[in-house]
């Protein structure tokens, strides 16, 4: 079998014929290997699902226990035989439980990164580079203008604002799976130990993190809180949660959106509130290109995102690249704030 035929692109997503499984399929399939729990990658209703225990737990919390016919947990680094394919999950550094899928078929090796990042994240193990014949990368932030600053500096910005405006709640919109927990963990590292108020969806997912030994400190549910009691507190919740709460209050909240999209002024002004924070769980341009150089020994395939610039970069650097333009990925991070 040619290495380029180990995975084929079908309407349901990337398919491995040798192992008869799909990776992050966007339609219901018989056998799915899932990179991570974000809803654009982990969908309900597959007959059999293979993923890390953390990802399976996330899916169960979001979709209910019957999210798939059957499930199999894979440990990171453990190799599992699926038909004629050998499948190994390796850390992707994106969120808790996120994994790259390493597929080996008759001497050829393909790695599907899923979403990934190289920046430090206290809530999940670091991305593990695996040299391969074909590296299948995301490109959410695949333009050279996207160079994420250290998340620690953005967290310091939040804490400085809290010190300067102690009478106002700080409402941060941070995606409920991954971003919220990373932000909380970084706040704890910065020696912020006050209770952090979270909306119900975030709270449920924080419990999954705690169950997998990621300590997040004291959390308080947002439901039942009066606006006045939130003064000087950090609240992690979507914008919809604050609309009614502060309708009649003198000191409204300071709002912020934690996202890599906050890098450009236009986006920050459109959706960043008073405190846009450039914090992303995706690789930035430097990480995308450095990783491609490091691991892609044959070809670079690009699943979704800003692929035009990355295609051009690959061509200028003698790396053979191919855009896959998989429909249905990227919706979660790109959702309206």
């Amino acid at each position, binding site marked *: 079998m040619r290495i380029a035929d180990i995975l084929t692109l079908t309407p349901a997503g990337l398919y491995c014929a040798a192992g008869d499984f799909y990776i992050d399929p966007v339609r219901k399939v018989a056998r799915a290997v899932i990179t991570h729990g974000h809803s654009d990658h982990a969908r309900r209703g597959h007959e059999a699902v293979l993923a890390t225990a953390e990802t399976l737990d996330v899916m169960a919390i979001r979709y209910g226990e019957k999210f798939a016919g059957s499930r199999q947990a894979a440990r990171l680094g453990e190799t599992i035989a699926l038909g004629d394919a050998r499948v190994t999950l390796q850390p992707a550094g994106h969120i808790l439980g996120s994994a790259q899928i390493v597929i080996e078929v008759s001497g050829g090796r393909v790695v599907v990164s899923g979403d990934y990042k190289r920046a430090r994240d206290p809530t999940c193990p670091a991305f593990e580079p695996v040299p391969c014949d074909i590296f299948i990368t995301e490109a959410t932030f695949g*333009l050279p*203008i996207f*160079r994420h600053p250290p998340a620690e500096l953005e967290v310091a910005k939040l804490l400085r604002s809290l010190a*300067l405006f102690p009478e106002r709640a700080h409402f941060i919109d941070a995606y409920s799976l991954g971003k919220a927990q990373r932000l909380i963990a970084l706040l704890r590292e910065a020696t912020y130990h006050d209770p952090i108020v979270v909306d119900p969806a975030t709270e449920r997912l924080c419990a999954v993190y705690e169950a997998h030994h990621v300590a997040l400190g004291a959390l308080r549910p947002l439901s039942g809180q009066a606006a006045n009691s939130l003064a000087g507190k950090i609240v992690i919740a979507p914008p919809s949660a604050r609309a009614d709460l502060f309708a009649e209050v003198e000191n409204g909240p300071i709002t912020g959106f934690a996202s890599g999209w906050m890098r450009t*002024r236009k986006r*920050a002004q459109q959706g960043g509130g008073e405190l*846009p924070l450039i914090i992303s769980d995706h690789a930035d341009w430097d990480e995308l290109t450095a990783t491609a150089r490091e691991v892609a020994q044959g070809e670079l395939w690009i699943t979704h995102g800003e692929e*035009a*610039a990355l295609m051009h970069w690959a061509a200028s650097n003698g790396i053979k690249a191919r855009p896959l*333009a998989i429909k249905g990925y990227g919706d979660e991070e790109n959702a309206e704030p």
Partner: protein
Amino acid sequence: MNRFAALLDRLENADGEMKQRLLADYLATTPEPDRTIAVDFLAARLKPRRIALALIRSLADARFDPVLYALSLDYVDDVAETIALLWPPQRRANRDPSLSEVVEALSTLGRSELPKRIETWLDACDASGRWALIKLATGRFKSPMPSPDRPQKLAIAQDDMFPTTASPQISGSIDAVLLYVERGKLKASPTFCTFGLWKGGALVPVGKAGILPDDRKCVDEFVRENTIKRFGPVSQVAQTLVLEVAFEDLKRAPRRKSGIAMRTARITRVLREKRPGDASTIEGLERLLPAR
């Protein structure tokens, strides 16, 4: 510069009362003479000798891949910000310059020394600092503070360091073909349309204009059915929809493919009955420019 830029970032997104407190905090932690200079900048009292944006573009051209620059500019839609974000970080750069160093150097350094100095500063600043530096040095800085009541001029020098070709404002309208469409992040954000005119048998982009949600139904419908390729939020569409575009300012811009910069453009009508061949040419637009 980085600290002042961080203040600007926060002021840009703050409400009135927040602005006062952010500024007070900055002033309390900033030594003279930067403190006075910062206030003068925010009060629009200080206008240092300006350098041309073209000079900074030429510094950038030497460092950037032109295709990556073009794709980035298309996304960011602002030359100063694109350069600020693209500028590669230097591991062993000097510390970033203080506001007073920048203002002093702009007024004292000669034409031959200045580009090198600006390059050193760009290396030393972070992304926000580079943005603020480019905006201040090219006279494009708009204060995020409400204008104070003392219009006292503290201008160090008013004249341009490098003469630009000043031209009177030209307004008019033209029929152009829709090339790219960029949807805003929010439902209420405008949709940005890039349009082009004919030049030697091909359509060349000449400008960009926003349409607000109320007026864009027709364009949205067209984009849904005619998208050829997507680059993130940008859709490339079939070159078949003709738009009537009004503009308030036209200038020669030799570095652009079209040779012309169109400012304050807006889409006044969607001309569904017209065919792309009916759209104007670059030569037609050039005739609206004053003679050199």
